[in-house]
């Protein structure tokens, strides 16, 4: 038997860190979408959790009603949720851009309650089971823990999506337009770029990320109307800690806090659902703009 680290066998510690990374993948995907939307639209999208839940429900409905499996759902569900986002942005959100951030927050919060209430009314709270796709069933024995293949896939998928989004925004021409339009929309419009359409598509992309996270989550958690509200508060804390609007900050903080939460579950499990908020409070006191945010 090897020695122990702070009274915990190293095997257990590695296992918990890996689990933290898996949960961090969801935090990162969701906070990435929030950061993209906030950076571009200045809207604090409180409906993000509800849209994540919608992503999971869409894939469940595709499977049970139409017999369309996981891999297609991975493509279709984000598209459907993204389309829903387009409708929301065109009909409701676009009317609020002239007003304070608070109005966007209140509107999206109300929307979240309505969407959640509708699903709860239709499907109850216990949730629906969604099977793990056959290709990802089973798991690997890593020596220190049993890693289900599906969870490994979630980490890989989330890393790929986060990385490519970051590259798209920071390193491509389209990303440059986006960042420019955030700084000075009037000037960018003057160069002949359709800024309102870009805003709509950005929102759609942000919520499609939430939908994608929902599909990834469906086989792990029950597909339940409450799954979004359980997660969204933590994700908001992640965004605040990372710095509102900072893409890199959102992603890194997502993974980092997942790890930290994992450690808390070993050392003091009772505190595992508040540790993120304690960190948020500390960060707000020391660096109010967040770890990666710029003071404006």
């Amino acid at each position, binding site marked *: 038997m090897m020695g122990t680290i702070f009274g915990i*066998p190293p*095997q*257990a510690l590695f*296992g*918990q860190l890996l*689990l*933290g990374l*898996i*949960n961090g993948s969801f935090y990162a995907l969701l906070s990435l979408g929030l950061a993209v939307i906030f950076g571009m639209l200045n809207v604090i999208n409180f409906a993000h959790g509800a849209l994540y839940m919608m992503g999971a429900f869409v894939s469940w409905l595709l499977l049970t009603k139409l017999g369309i499996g996981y891999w297609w759902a991975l493509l279709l569900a984000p598209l459907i949720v993204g389309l829903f986002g387009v409708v929301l942005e065109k009909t409701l959100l676009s009317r609020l851009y002239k007003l304070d951030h608070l109005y966007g927050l209140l509107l999206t919060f109300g929307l979240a309650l309505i969407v959640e209430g509708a699903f*709860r009314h239709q499907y*109850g*709270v*216990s*949730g*629906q*089971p969604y*099977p*793990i796709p056959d290709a990802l069933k089973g*798991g690997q024995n890593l020596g220190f*823990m*049993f890693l*289900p293949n*599906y*969870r490994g896939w979630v980490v890989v998928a989330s890393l790929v999506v986060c990385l490519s989004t970051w590259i798209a925004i920071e390193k491509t021409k389209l990303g440059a337009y986006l960042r420019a339009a955030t700084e000075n929309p009037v000037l960018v419009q003057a160069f002949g770029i359709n800024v309102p359409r870009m805003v709509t598509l950005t929102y759609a992309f942000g919520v499609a990320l939430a939908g994608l996270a929902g599909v990834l989550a469906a086989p*792990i*958690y*029950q597909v*339940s109307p*409450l*799954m979004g509200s*359980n*997660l969204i508060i933590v994700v908001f804390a992640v965004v605040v800690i990372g710095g509102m609007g900072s893409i890199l900050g959102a992603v890194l903080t997502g993974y980092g806090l997942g790890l930290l939460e*994992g450690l808390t*579950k*070993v050392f003091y*499990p*009772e505190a*595992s*659902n508040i540790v993120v908020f304690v960190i948020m409070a500390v960060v707000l006191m020391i660096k109010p703009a967040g770890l990666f945010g710029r003071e404006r």
Partner: protein
Amino acid sequence: MIARLLAGAALAALTIGATGPANAQQGKLSGDMVKVGVLNDRSGLYADLGGEGSAVAARMAAEEFGNKILGKPIQIITADHQNKPDIGSNLARQWIDQDGVDVIVDVPNSGVALAVQEVTREKKTIFLMEGPATSRLTGDACSPTGFHWPYDTRALAVGTGQAIVKEGGDSWFFITADYAFGHQLEADTSAQVKKAGGKVVGSVKAPLNTADFSSFLLQAQASGAKIVGLANAGGDTITSIKQASEFGLTQSGQQKLAGLLIFLSDVHALGLQVAQDLVLTTGFYWDRNDETRAWSKKFFDRHGKMPTMVQAGSYSAVRHYLKAIEAAGTDDGPTVAAKMKEMPVNDMFAQNGSILPNGRMVHDMYLARVKKPSESKGPWDYYEILRTIPGKEAFATFEESGCKLPK
């Protein structure tokens, strides 16, 4: 919330209709009606095991009396306590003080039930508990007007705990919901495990409404215990069982899961593929005999789901309460409570049930196994009853309970 209460009251008033001619044995009813308040989680993780279904069951009980008692109407109202003890006790107080509610029904979540028990004890109001589990409600926190109906932590511990130790599951690790209910369920089960010759090697307290149990499951795996006891309920149980199957906890054959509190609604949500072979203790199963099948069929036609033991228990308790009012000729709390304790409970839920001085309704419990998908003949065909646990064995006696009421 108030709007919802008002809407509920208005609806109930509509369905009551005109009051009939004065009855010869017309007694004293406060507010000239019996007002039943069903207080539970209507939107959160416990909404499917009780929720609106408990209100449906209470209405079915009232309908057996023609929605009238001693010539006066029976009214049923509902509210959502959101699993918050302060909201629950405030609603109870408002119902009793301002709205003339005569009896409070259900109240799942032991934390909320303990808070409401304080209010109903002070107000001498009848409190019929179907949802909550902790045996403290008839132990140190007992009340002269409190009644605990379908199950409690001690009965679950006796049923599932002892049965599993007898089959060789003699070392336990608990994953426990971190509040009153989980702590009590772990304590009661540990006691039964040790009594049967087993040992407890450890436990971890998981916050209520946890989305990811994998970390706790890993700790359970590392403990090397033969049995991982889930001292949680509702959504938490569903998530932990599902994720245990994902992490291959039971596939190695070295560890087994013991769900200490599993409702029919949980099995329905999990699906038989994941839930198969779980052993559980329940106070009610719809497919047990002709009477339970007939009643459950009626319930299903209204609610679209088969009843859990909490919902069936709500029917049984409300029905017994109304019978006691009929016999006592009044809805005065302490008088009705005394009458309820005198009368045996006989309905589709319980045969020759009796009520102890601490309010514990003693009736047979059932040890059940969840069927494999291949054994199930149709929707909701989920349990095989392994054993009937006599009420006297399942529940603590009045002396054992620790309740300080006069006998």
